[in-house]
């Protein structure tokens, strides 16, 4: 596995950095009555600026629900959750949408690139949502694609790119409007080992450059070394927060354990 890039902020302690995400006692239930599923059972979690936090745990443990609540795309039932001091539940629907558009970048497991648009147009979407005019947005998108090594493919549609290239486009789209928080849902699960590794290097190298906070949901223990901290979830709760995979699973950790 490659070494983690030099700009890693893991040398900083939590106490000297501002909090990006603050969650206390967050709960979320799905369904009603006997069929209620308690997806989150009182989550306490902080994510700091300049930090890459990985959320790991078995399937169904609530990782995706938690990342959805943090990103403001899902309402929590109880508890507190704020992003850069803003509590989504205190915002109107329109304010919440605006805040999300300005502050949060998204990277999805299956990329979610619009197949009928070129990759430059895909990357320009967050800028358009933030009121940048089309020409300037496309220019900025092309610059961003150059940063991730796709400057010569700007007019291609996503279906002409490999999985790794598509994820690089998705990362460009997540970062183009300079968000302060980036949430990534299984960013490497659709990629082979080497490509996944490159994507994480890119995320760590490019995304972390602006003192951003990154929350990465993953099953992929091969990328755990890229994390500043790893929060392990089980049964709707964060049961451990550690600094490395070895602390979590011991020196002989395996994929099955993740």
């Amino acid at each position, binding site marked *: 596995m490659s070494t983690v890039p030099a700009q890693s902020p893991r040398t900083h302690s939590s106490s000297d950095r501002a909090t990006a995400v603050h969650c206390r006692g967050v709960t979320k239930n799905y369904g009603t009555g006997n069929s209620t599923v308690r997806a989150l059972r009182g989550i306490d979690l902080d994510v700091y600026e300049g930090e890459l936090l990985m959320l790991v745990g078995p399937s169904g443990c609530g990782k*995706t629900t938690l*990342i*959805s609540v943090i*990103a403001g*795309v*899902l309402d929590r039932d109880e508890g507190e959750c704020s992003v850069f001091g803003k509590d989504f539940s205190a915002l109107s*629907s*329109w304010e919440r*949408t*605006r805040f*999300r*558009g*300005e502050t*949060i970048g*998204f990277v*999805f*497991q*299956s990329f*979610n690139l*619009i197949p*009928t*648009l070129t990759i430059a*147009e895909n990357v320009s*979407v*967050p800028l*358009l*949502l*933030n009121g940048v005019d*089309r020409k300037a947005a496309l220019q900025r998108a092309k610059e961003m694609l150059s940063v991730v090594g796709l400057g010569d493919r700007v007019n291609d549609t996503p279906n002409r790119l490999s999985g790794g290239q598509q994820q690089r486009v998705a990362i460009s789209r997540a970062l183009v409007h300079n968000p302060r928080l980036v949430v990534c*849902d*299984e960013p490497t699960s659709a990629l082979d080992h080497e490509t996944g590794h490159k994507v994480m290097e890119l995320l760590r190298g490019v995304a972390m450059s602006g003192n951003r906070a990154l929350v990465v949901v993953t099953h992929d223990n091969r990328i755990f070394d890229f994390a500043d901290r790893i929060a392990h979830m089980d049964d709707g709760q964060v049961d451990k927060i550690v600094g490395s995979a070895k602390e979590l699973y011991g020196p002989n950790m395996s994929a099955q354990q993740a």
Partner: protein
Amino acid sequence: MYWLALKMLFNDKAKFFGIVMGVTLASLVITQQGSIFIGILSRTFGVITDMNYPEIWVMDPKVQFIDDTKPLQDTKLFEVRGVPGVASAVPLYKGMIRARMENGLFQNCNLYGLDDATLIGGPGEMVAGKLADLRMADSVIIDLEGATDKLARPNPVPGKPKIPIQIGDTLELNDHRAVVVGICKGSRTFQSQPNVFTTYSRAVTFAPRERKLLSFILVNAEPGMNLETLCRRITEKTGLSAYTADQFKMMTVNYFLKYTGIPINFGIAVSLGFLVGTLITGFMFYSFTIDNLKFLGTLKAMGTSDAMLMRMILLQALAVGLLGFGIGVGAATLFGVSMKNTQLAFWLTWQLLVVSMCAVVIICMLAAMLSVRKVVALEPAVVFKG
């Protein structure tokens, strides 16, 4: 974002063409069938339009439409002329007559008897001859359709086209000799029978014997006279019904709408066009939205408001609507132009274009509504579910 919405639509070529075809089909059927409907209805009052001279038509109170003549006593003409505000009043005979063809067959014709002195009510456009030639003995003017088709002589060579009637040819009208002195152009009638024009005095000799023969009195008002006021005055003074030309047209149209199956037949065709167009467009547009739901959810998660997504969908619907409408109306117009010299009744009016456009807008809005509901109900969190 609107530009993006249009690109999403245009670049999904299969769906895009499917949706446009749906709208085109609806627009074509509504416009084409509507034009034929209006064309047929216009034939019911073509005579009133062609006789553009009279401002007021006076008739028996029981008359319901132009072909429903209930003869008046000739003295009624003088009563009408005596009504204050009437500048001129002339008689018009309108009836059916049988023309005997050279091959022994009979053809029913519309016979119009015009005022002998003024020839008011005569055809406006002559193809051959002059209106004044009606003052010659036994003279008649026939319309072009009759001259070239229904009254034309059979060709002695089998399979060859009929020989059109020309000036100087004779006809046998109800056992009376009639000499053709002119060919005129006029609106085709609802029954598509030839129109034969002659003087009033000659028409009543051609016509089958009846006690009363005066069909209508054509009136012109004095300058500055309100036509509706004059109509009321004529009715009060003579007991006859009097209508302005426009009122008489509407009365005729309303009769056909009320007492014939025309509106139902065309209504069914137009409704089917609307329904099929709505179903195809709605289904294809909904399917397009469903295919893009994941991406719309992504846009929603990334900060696109519901209002913006709705506007994007409406724009997409309007874009396909306008395109489909344009193609549909264009195709209907081409159809109309290609059928110009046939018997097909086709009249594309601007009002029909407005109706067709409204129908297309409704179709698109219905299609968009289905999609908008789905998108508004979409939880942005769905994007994290793979």
